[in-house]
């Protein structure tokens, strides 16, 4: 071996050892039984109760971090693209709103208990959320998307409410008759276009039958949009439907427009089952206020004894209890027709705060865990069969040289996977396609070289000379082929989205490594083999 060959040899050894070392956690992780793997996936060192447990969990977390992660398409999970609706905010507010929303969503997801959630900002006002593994998708979506704006508002008195309804009726009656005052002989629906749609038990708390809800809603929208109609009172729907003699209906309240206090004063919140004395076991949420909020709450309740206080969540009335007496300590509760999960969600969102602006889900992809397992099994199976066929063909066709090519190929895949583990990249299905194509290109590289060497041998060159010229001449073609493919995959990386990018990344890494393994390392093996044995013929 010449000096430079020795260097190449040592570099190769370092390359192989480094790759194996980087891949060790991945081997460890995926050789665990499925149950134990789940334990590792869920490990959260911050939840440890003892020192020994903390060390164990930290070890798990490290292992999880260092192993190659599987994409949602392979392990199942949920992908959500949210858009923060900043249309009602100023430019500065809008900028902060997205950051705030991300922080709040992160808090909520953390409390939901998903291992390894990924929450990223995308573009100006979008948030990309990826939640791997098993989870209740509907619940997760409700948790993330809920604005959770909690407000405390006074329910208006009967007189105030009646005054508002009279104004609304007059407003719509004028509209209906093109501005003229209503005829006193006209039917109720013309004189009272709005209140005729309500079943009023009292003015401040009316009931609307479900078939009338859309039209009442449309009228409320119209009032809101008209800037000439101002009032310190507003209409708010009950959060749950009720039953009026066998027909579905929904309550409609008249509450003050401005909130007395907001949910930002909530310090803690828990789901409880013992809040409603009339319905034992019904889930609800109890909350504690901050000291400032507690003082404020004391003042509010103290000066409004006898009136009703509405607890409003995202514009819907959760409950509107009577204020019996001043509540000095900042404690309260929210009851309603919650399921246990809904109450749990509500407690989480109250703890982590309200979103500064509403968010909309604009893209959603969920892959069930069995689907993920099925596609990974099939993908691996197909990939293995394909690779074996190629290996078999190469060895049959090129004999010993084929073995060299296969060694180079294995090193290529090893290096590619090690790079992915090192960069904390995620393996997705398109990524596997990228690996398959890398294998194709790697095989092609060797075929190009071997065919060239064969040609040179046919031209009666010596073995050594044939290897030299074969490599040298094939090298130029290989570089051109790799550069063109790399250029196009860079374009895909820059401009492509999700799956396309995953594909382009694995392909690019694979191609770069291929230049090292298929050209450098295989040449080194050839040199060592031919020079040492002083070969007069070669198995190719």
């Amino acid at each position: 071996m010449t000096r430079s060959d020795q260097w190449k040899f040592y570099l190769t050894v370092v390359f192989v050892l480094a790759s194996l070392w980087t891949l060790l956690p991945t081997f460890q992780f995926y050789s665990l039984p499925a149950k134990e793997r789940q334990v590792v996936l869920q490990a959260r060192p911050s939840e440890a109760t003892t020192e020994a447990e903390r060390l164990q969990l930290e070890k798990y977390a490290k292992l999880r971090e260092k192993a190659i992660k599987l994409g949602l398409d392979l392990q199942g999970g949920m992908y959500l693209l949210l858009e923060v609706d900043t249309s009602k905010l100023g430019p500065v507010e809008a900028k902060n709103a997205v950051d705030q929303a991300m922080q709040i969503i992160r808090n909520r997801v953390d409390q939901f208990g998903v291992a390894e959630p990924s929450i990223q900002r995308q573009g100006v006002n979008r948030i990309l959320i990826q939640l791997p593994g098993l989870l209740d998708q509907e619940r997760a979506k409700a948790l993330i998307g809920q604005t959770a704006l909690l407000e405390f508002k006074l329910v208006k008195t009967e007189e105030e409410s009646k005054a508002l309804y009279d104004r609304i009726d007059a407003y719509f009656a004028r509209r209906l008759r093109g501005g003229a005052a209503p005829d006193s002989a006209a039917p109720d629906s013309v004189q009272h276009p709005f209140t005729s749609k309500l079943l009023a038990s009292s003015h401040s708390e009316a009931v609307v039958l479900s078939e009338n809800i859309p039209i009442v809603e449309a009228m409320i929208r119209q009032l809101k949009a008209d800037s000439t109609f101002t009032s310190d009172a507003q209409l708010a729907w009950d959060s749950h439907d009720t039953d009026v003699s066998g027909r579905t209906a929904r309550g409609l309240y008249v509450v003050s427009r401005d909130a007395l206090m907001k949910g930002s004063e909530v310090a803690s919140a828990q789901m409880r089952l013992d809040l409603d004395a009339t319905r034992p076991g019904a889930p609800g949420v109890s909350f504690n206020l901050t000291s400032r909020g507690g003082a404020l709450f004391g003042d509010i309740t103290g000066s409004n004894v006898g009136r009703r206080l509405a607890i409003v969540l995202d514009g819907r009335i959760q409950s509107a209890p009577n204020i019996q007496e001043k509540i000095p300590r900042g404690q309260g509760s929210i009851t309603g027709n919650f399921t246990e999960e809904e109450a749990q969600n509500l407690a989480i969102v109250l703890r982590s705060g309200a979103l500064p602006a509403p968010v909309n889900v604009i893209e959603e992809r969920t892959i069930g865990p069995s689907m993920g397992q099925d596609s990974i099994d099939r993908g691996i199976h197909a990939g293995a069969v394909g690779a074996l066929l190629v290996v078999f063909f190469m060895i049959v066709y090129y004999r010993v040289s084929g073995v060299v090519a296969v060694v180079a190929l294995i090193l290529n895949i090893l290096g590619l996977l090690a790079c992915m583990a090192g960069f904390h990249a995620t393996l997705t299905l398109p990524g596997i396609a990228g690996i398959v194509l890398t294998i194709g290109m790697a095989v092609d590289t060797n075929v190009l070289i071997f065919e060239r060497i064969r040609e040179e041998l046919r031209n009666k060159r010596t073995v050594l000379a044939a290897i030299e010229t074969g490599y040298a001449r094939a090298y130029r073609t290989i570089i051109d082929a790799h550069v063109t493919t790399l250029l196009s995959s860079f374009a895909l990386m820059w401009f492509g989205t999700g799956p396309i990018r995953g594909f382009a990344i694995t392909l690019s890494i694979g191609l770069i490594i291929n230049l090292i393994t298929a050209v450098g390392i295989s040449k080194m093996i050839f040199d060592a083999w031919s020079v040492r044995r002083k070969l007069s013929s070669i198995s190719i």
Partner: protein
Amino acid sequence: MFQILHGVNVDWMRRRHIAFLFSGACVLVSIVSLIMHGGPRYGVDFTGGALVEILVTPPVHADAVRAAVDHAGYRGSEIQELSRPGQFLIRTEIRAGQNPAPAIVQAVSTEHPGAKVERLRYESVGPRVGSELRGAAIKAIFFALGFILVYVGIRYDWRYSLGAVAALFHDVFITLGALSLMNKEITLTVVAALLTIAGYSINDTIVVFDRIRERSRTLRRETPANVMNIAINETLSRTIITSFTVFLTVMALYTLGGEVIHDFAFAMLVGVVFGTYSSVYVASGLALEVQLWLERAGQGQRKK
């Protein structure tokens, strides 16, 4: 030495006009199919909409699923039975921001009380996101092709560049036509396949061009057509072997890879076959035509 195709001596270029006719016919079939199907059939990734995949055990008939989906209020949805019995893919629309999956699963369960309905996959893409994804994909393809064109133009010759890009379009377009003929959808994964085909096509073309360039230096006395024939014949074994190994892998993906990778593999199969053919005929043939045309033009000028 075990070899195939050693010492072939085929006059490829003499038959290039037949190849042009064949390619023209394939492109024509693709165009007709695309027109008849009203353009490429974009999947939910690009049009926006929702896709629900369910598994019903024990399996039920597709018509029963269709009836249940209709009852759930999603009339006009498209229901496709997949290879596994009881596995269905339902393409539907999003109404008023409501996720249709729970309603559909619920409806199927109610109509088949004995069956277990499992939700395997759910994808929904808003219409605006769909058009953005389409824009991003088109931009990515445009730049990928642009980079290749410029690189080949710099490294070789613009005559070659023309042939290479024509071959590229030929392969990608015919694959699109084949997808349209088979009524398959264009999803993000299929776009990845189309781009890979473009990559392979250019790779194949460059190997042949590289040899043509090398030979045109050593064989100065030969006609351009002969130089090309020699280069193609010399690289033929490599072309066939590489295509064969790629074909093997893609065939394995196609037959064993499962539903998710199926369309990707299908596109690749078509692309690999046409890519191999086009690097021989379309790319070199066109480069030759351009060269001959230039020579005739040059002679015409000299005569004057």
